[in-house]
């Protein structure tokens, strides 16, 4: 029977090697929670800039308000770009920190063939979405920017999920669903953006943290 046990152990080891060599498994759930907090802060700052509240019954929508707002010495385009960039940089920096820490604890490397593949898979839809959103701003279509970022980010996650934890795929599909809903309910664009980038990240991040890191 010890022969059988040996074979079973060999099979388990092979399965682990297949997973570890093809998928980046050190992605930390806390990275998601942090990204969500950054996004919620960003959304709050946008509401401050517009002088509006979420889910308000204001007579005009946030994107109509945006066009006529000039606060803190910035037009809405400059302000949206600066805020988006700040959120992105903060989210990435914190995400890298938590993922680095998880990799170190597991005795793995953060930068290896599997993480490289995951990032390349994300990069194509993400850059496309970035340029696409810039074009929308360029043609004065701010209403479509928030849902478009959700859709492209969701596609990037679905693509990247093939090279990291499977759970990322469901997060990606949820982001796409929110984004597509936002394309039809333009007035709720900011709320849906905050739900997708903020609340979903926090929810999935904590769930993944509980599942893999506790």
């Amino acid at each position, binding site marked *: *029977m010890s022969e059988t046990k040996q074979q079973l152990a060999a099979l388990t*080891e*092979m399965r682990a090697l297949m997973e570890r060599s093809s998928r980046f498994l050190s992605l930390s759930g806390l990275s998601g929670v942090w990204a969500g907090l950054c996004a919620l802060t960003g959304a709050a700052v946008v509401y401050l800039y517009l002088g509006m509240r979420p889910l308000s019954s204001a007579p005009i929508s946030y994107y109509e308000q945006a066009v006529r707002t000039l606060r803190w010495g910035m037009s809405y385009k400059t302000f949206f770009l600066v805020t988006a960039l700040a959120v992105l940089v903060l989210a990435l920096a914190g995400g890298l920190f938590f993922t680095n820490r998880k990799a170190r604890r597991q005795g793995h*490397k953060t930068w290896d063939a599997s993480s490289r593949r995951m990032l390349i898979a994300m990069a194509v839809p993400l850059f496309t979405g970035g340029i696409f959103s810039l074009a929308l701003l360029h043609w004065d279509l701010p209403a479509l920017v928030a849902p478009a970022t959700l859709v492209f980010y969701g596609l990037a996650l679905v693509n990247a999920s093939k090279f990291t934890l499977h759970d990322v795929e469901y997060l990606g599909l949820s982001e796409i669903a929110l984004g597509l809903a936002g394309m039809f309910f333009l007035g709720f664009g900011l709320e849906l953006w905050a739900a997708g980038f903020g609340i979903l990240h926090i929810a999935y991040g904590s769930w993944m943290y509980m599942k893999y890191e506790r």
Partner: protein
Amino acid sequence: MKNIITQLNPAFDHRNRLGIMSILVVNDWVEYNTLKELLNLTDGNLASHLKALESAAYITIQKRFVGRKPQTSYAATDAGKAAFKTHLDTLEAILRMAREGEDD
């Protein structure tokens, strides 16, 4: 039972060789250093197992220069993938028989 055990491929008669094949069947090309890290092996040990698999024509080697550094990558051949699959099927059959034996 005895009969089926003889079907196990002697080229895979070591856990490190099974490890190498496991990594190569799910990836296109894998660098030497990546293999070394994943399997946690010494140079001598890894090289000897790679050589054994290469002489069985189960893996193929690609050498190229990245900048000035030589880089060696490995991939499983079609024959290697087929042999590995047969080996896994046999392992599975053995385990199934062992389990049925326990139930009796």
